[in-house]
Each structure stands twice: as C-alpha cells, then as structure tokens.
C-alpha cells in the first residue's frame, strides 16, 4: 500500500466518523457515575468487614446463652447501603443465625440480585483482593455499561505482576446459568485460566491475559490457588 493509498484511506475513515449526533453524556454524567462506582466499592469493603463482625457477633450470641440473639450484629449491619448484593453475607448473619457452628464461618456470597449484573462487582472485588492481595491497588479495566446476565458477578482489573501487564477477569456464574465459562484457547504465554465449583453451586472462573511484553500472563501460577480461595466464599 502506498503512502497515497494510506492518505486516502485515512481521509475516508475520518469522513465516515464525521457528523456525529449529539453526545449522549456530558462531564457531569461521567463524574456522577465515577463517584457512584467508588461509593459502591467502599460500601462493599465496609460490608465485608461488617459481615465478619456480624458472624462473630452471632457466634458470641450462640455460645453465650442469654447474651443476645444476634440483634446487635444485625443492627451493626443495617446502615450499610446495598452494594450490589454485598450485604447478603451481612444480612445472612442474622437470617442464617441458627447453629453458628453448623457451617463455614461466613456464608457464601452467591448470586447477585436483580436482572442486571454489573461487570465491576464491588462485593466480588473485595473477595478477589483477599485471594490476590496485589490487586488491592489495581485499576479497574473499562467495561461497557451493558448488563451482564442477572445473578452473575464479574470483576475486570488491569494488573501487573513482575513487570508484566495484563487483564484479570474474575467471573462468577450462579447455578444453572448458561453458558458456563469455558477454558479459553490454550495460549500459555498469553492467557492463563483457572476455574472451580463454588459453595453456592455455581462456578468461578479466572482469566489472566497478558497485554504487554512478557513471557507469561500475570499471576499465571496462582490462578488455581486463587480460585480455590474464592470457591468457598462464592
């Protein structure tokens, strides 16, 4: 292709993208959405911490007869706004407050609520940070505002591991939801993948895709362990 060809093609592309309709969003919309997402994430982190407090509170109530009935824990959890299902665990601390020693210390997060699941789920992000602490400061990768199937959860993060940049996608699909995540094309130097069945009967899948120079995707050796950490919590 000659330089002239390239110049003409460029002119054609510019013409094709011209005459844009009025924008569907402005600066205020962007700032509002950004702050809403940040607030959801903070609430989710707070919700996770309060869920632990609630479970401990229930445990104390059960092991100390007459010392309470879990109400204190539910009161502590009550002010937490609904961060996309994050308080499920907190609320579950009260509703599932039967025998505290009959199950895992923390109820699994399980499916998200509603028909429209976010692609950056704050409650799942909080769990991912427990499984892979290096992701605590990771930048959220851009995703579309379009809904994911109801009940699912996902997190998309721009990560770096040993100087290798990549995209980390953690996806939870609830029981019965199709299609279940399948192993992507095997390209060991570009994509690493791990999946596990979760406590709620769903599946968690983690995909790490190398997006910059390097020999392996970020956290390639740790995805299976991370999936094993997440599985009982989901």
């Amino acid at each position, binding site marked *: *292709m000659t330089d*002239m060809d*390239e*110049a*003409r*093609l*460029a*002119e*054609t*592309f*510019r*013409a*094709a*993208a*011209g*005459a*844009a*309709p009025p*924008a*569907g*969003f402005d*600066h205020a*919309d*962007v*700032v509002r*959405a*950004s702050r809403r*997402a*940040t607030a959801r994430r903070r609430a989710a982190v707070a919700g996770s911490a309060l869920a632990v407090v609630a479970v401990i509170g229930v445990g104390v109530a059960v092991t100390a007869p007459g010392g309470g009935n879990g109400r204190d824990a539910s009161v502590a959890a009550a002010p937490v706004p609904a961060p996309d299902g994050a308080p499920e665990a907190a609320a579950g601390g009260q509703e599932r407050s039967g025998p505290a020693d009959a199950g895992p210390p923390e109820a699994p997060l399980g499916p998200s609520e509603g028909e429209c699941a976010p692609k950056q789920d704050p409650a799942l992000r909080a769990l991912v940070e427990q499984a892979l602490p290096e992701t605590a*400061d990771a*930048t*959220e*990768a*851009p*995703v*579309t*505002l*379009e809904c*994911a*199937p109801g009940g699912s959860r996902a997190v*998309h993060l721009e990560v770096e591991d040993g100087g290798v*940049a990549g*995209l980390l996608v953690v996806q939870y699909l609830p029981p019965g939801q199709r*299609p279940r995540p399948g192993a992507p094309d095997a390209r060991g130097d570009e994509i690493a993948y791990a999946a596990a069945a979760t406590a709620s009967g769903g599946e968690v899948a983690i995909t790490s895709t*190398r*997006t*910059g120079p390097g020999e392996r995707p970020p956290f390639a050796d740790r995805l299976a362990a991370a999936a094993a950490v997440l599985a009982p919590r989901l």
Partner: protein
Amino acid sequence: MNEAGNADEEAFAAYFRARREHVRRTAYLLCGDWHRADDHAQSAFVALHRNWRRIRDRGALDAWMRRTLVRAVVDESRRPWRRERAVAEPDPGAVADGAGDGVATRHVLVDGLRTVPPRQRAVLVLRFLEGLDVARTAEVLGCSEGTVKSQTAHGLAALRAALGDALDDLRPAG
C-alpha cells in the same frame, strides 16, 4: 475538596472537553453504532476519572483511552451474551447514488467495517482514523508489529471483499 483534588477535577474536565468527540468517533468506527459508541466512550471516561490520580504519565492519556476502548469493544464482541450479529452484506450500489456524498461514505464504510473481525477492525481504525503508525498500533494492542501488519492486510482484504469497488469509489479523488 482540597486544592489538589480541585486541580485534578479541572484537569480531567479539560481533557474531557478536548477529547470527548474524538473518543466518540473512534468508538463509533470500532463498534458501528452511535448508541454503543457513547456507551463505550462514557465507560472509558468513567474509568479514566476513577483512575485519574493513579495514571502517572499524563502524556499517555490518549494511549490509555485508545487501549481501554479497543479492549472494551473487542471484549464485548467475545461475550456470549453480546456477540455481534452478522450484518447483511453491505450494498455497494448504495454509493453509486453519490460517491462524493458524505452520508453514503459513512454508511457504506461503517457497514463494511462491521463485517471485518473486531481485532482487524481495531487495527484499521487505529491506523487510518487515529493515524498511528505500526509501532504505536502494536503498543496499543499489546502485540507485535508483524501482527499489526498482517492484520492490516487481512482487515483491508476483508473490507475490500465486503465493499468491492465501492471502497475505491469512496476514497476522495486525489
């Protein structure tokens, strides 16, 4: 909000004002639909706002936005619940009514681009709309320069297969 916070907000607002329309146009050619283009562009700006303080190299904001846009569009095309639907073959005759007409140019080229696989389409948009050379395109896509060259060739071949002679007719007379 403290002084540094105000300065950050002002810097973001200035960048948004300067780049919104360009980002929307890039998104439009990447996905072929203005509603989805606005969705992608807004999502990219929201992500940028959320990460504004963490992006150390402010000289690389455009590259960051390009990377995020391309990734979001290609990623979306892979989602089982949002696969791009195959479009009907574009009608090369549509351009015959007015080869110099801007509306025909837009519709025919955008229809043709929809038939090009997402990754190849991204290469074409980065090369010919954004004006990036092979090396910078490779940086945005995280691939080798050889891959960019081959995907450019394949993408143009796919575009030509879809549009036929209409592609040449679309080009402004030189």
